[in-house]
């Protein structure tokens, strides 16, 4: 019917970026399962997939009572040794019989939640994207806990270079003519709705994780630029406040780095409108200009004092 997921993204709670061996330990959430690591074009580490059992109502725009039983797939990712994510998704399918079966039945179809009774995919999608009421499936809470697993690792020093809220991106994919719609809700909530002609593959979840990552980067850089108070605060002060952005964020922008070739057009269309990369580049230039300007000022002051001393 449809697939829904939620990705939470945060600054990894460590003073500097962490290296691959530490990443492997932080993300080694299951005995005997390897952490998948790719190094090009940017370091990206992915924990094993873990399952969580659920038996509850699904959010529905029309408030219909729709019960689903099954398992949610979750994992953690760390990109560039710096940004952590907790991600969960579930494939919603119609059950063959309208009563709850033994649990082993659901475990034979990992990542699927079976709907007991009737439900409309569009209704569920809209209900989920609107934000679920308390007694409904809560993918956000699951993703949040997975993110906590990484963030609370004793291997991290918890001295992050700046404080920043997590962002959450809820997504839904359905089968249909290719389309993508990205919506900003509150400061921290975003939604993505994707139609894809082929049946669901985990690559779509990876696409959404990549979108969430870049949206977080953009959101965070905007906050840092605002906090720096360019123009109102003295140049040196603004530059100092921008330093963490230069040190920790600017090199992380790599849209689509871990997204399969066939899904690249989704990223490309978002880059045309609203133009994520364009906005990022503009901000990046602004940050670099400010820092450069400050360096120039410092240099000229040093030069002047130097002349006076001579």
């Amino acid at each position, binding site marked *: 019917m449809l697939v829904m997921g939620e990705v939470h993204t*945060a*600054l990894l*709670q460590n003073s500097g970026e962490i290296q691959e061996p530490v990443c492997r330990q932080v993300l080694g959430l299951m005995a005997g399962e390897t952490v998948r690591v790719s190094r090009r074009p940017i370091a990206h580490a992915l924990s094993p997939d873990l399952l969580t059992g659920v038996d509850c109502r699904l959010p529905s725009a029309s408030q219909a009572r729709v019960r689903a039983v099954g398992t949610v797939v979750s994992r953690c990712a760390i990109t560039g040794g710096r940004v952590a994510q907790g991600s969960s998704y579930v494939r919603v399918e119609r059950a063959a019989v309208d009563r709850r079966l033994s649990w082993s039945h659901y475990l034979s179809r990992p990542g699927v939640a079976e709907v007991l009774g009737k439900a409309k995919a569009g209704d569920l999608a809209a209900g989920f994207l609107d934000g679920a009421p*308390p007694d409904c499936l*809560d993918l*956000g*809470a699951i993703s*949040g*806990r997975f993110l*906590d697993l990484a*963030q*609370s690792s004793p291997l*991290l*020093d*918890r*001295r*992050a270079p700046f*404080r*920043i*809220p*997590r962002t959450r991106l809820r997504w839904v994919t359905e089968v249909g003519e290719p389309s993508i719609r990205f919506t900003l809700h509150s400061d921290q909530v975003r939604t993505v709705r994707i139609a894809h002609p082929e049946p669901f593959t985990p690559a779509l979840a990876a696409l959404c994780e990549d979108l969430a990552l870049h949206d977080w980067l953009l959101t965070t850089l905007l906050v840092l630029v605002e906090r720096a*108070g360019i123009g*109102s605060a003295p140049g040196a002060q603004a530059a100092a406040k921008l330093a963490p952005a230069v040190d920790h964020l600017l090199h992380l922008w790599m849209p689509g780095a871990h997204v399969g070739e066939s899904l690249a057009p989704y990223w490309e269309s978002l880059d045309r409108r609203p133009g994520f990369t364009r906005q990022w580049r503009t901000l990046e230039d602004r940050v670099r200009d400010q820092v450069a300007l400050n360096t120039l000022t410092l240099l000229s002051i040093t030069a002047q004092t130097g002349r006076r001393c001579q």
Partner: protein
Amino acid sequence: MLIFAISDKGGTGRSVTSTNIGYRHALQGNDVCYLDFDFGSPTAGAIFSVSSVARGTRNGGLHEYLRGGCAEPHRVDVWTESDREGLRTKPPGAGRLVLLPGSEGGGELSAVDDEMVRRCVQLFGRLEEEFDLCMVDVSAGRSFTAEMVLQASVRLPSIPFRWLVFHRWTRQHIIAADGLVTGADGLLDAGARFGHDPEELRDRIRFVRTAVLEPDAAELVGLRDEQRAWLSACDAELRELAGRHGVGRTAMLGKVPLDPVLQWREQLISDEDVLASKIANAETAAAFDELAKKIVDDSAWEGL
């Protein structure tokens, strides 16, 4: 940084002082979160003038969250949700100011189980990611709430925390404040049981005197000489008593003068209250401002 606000007795000015410190800290450019852990009577909403949560919130209060009733506690952005005109716009340069209200009709915790501590740890860990300062109103006296945060802070070794013990400037309050820290089942005693190093814990505790009437205060101008002499003698005696009880100058982080506004109403003292309407004393605002700096000033927290 986590700040735990506690007092031995009720009605000492713990909530009013800690909210004002949080408010000042936000004005100083820091992102601040205020957690109302006074489950028996959650009233922080009233002090922030957010009437919708004046007595706690009906959905997603901290109490409910800690009991596992909701996945995330309700948040109130004071800069947008306060009823006070003067608070409703975030001053330029100020940080975020977010209130996590208690649950309406909630009661004191009657026990602490491991699950609750786990949730408390999760909450502190998450808030630490986004806020420079989390001010926690732990309620008065020896409580399960205090026990819970003592346990939670042990499990978060890399998150810095500090305790503020609020007390009034009277005999009973001085003795009680000391008892809360060093007495049997006090903070140090219980803290050690949960795995804190008592020495280290001691260094993380400071006292704050509330509603202090200095013998030379303007309010006392009309007093007779005999009365003034008596007050001075009392004050000297209290200072001596405080020194003996380890509540003296060295262990004190600051004091807040008695303020006419606060005597009449539990509220934030804004600069406008001091400068424009002139209802509050400048010294009061200055004391809050000073405390807001000192809570994060390491030199004020060097070993005693």
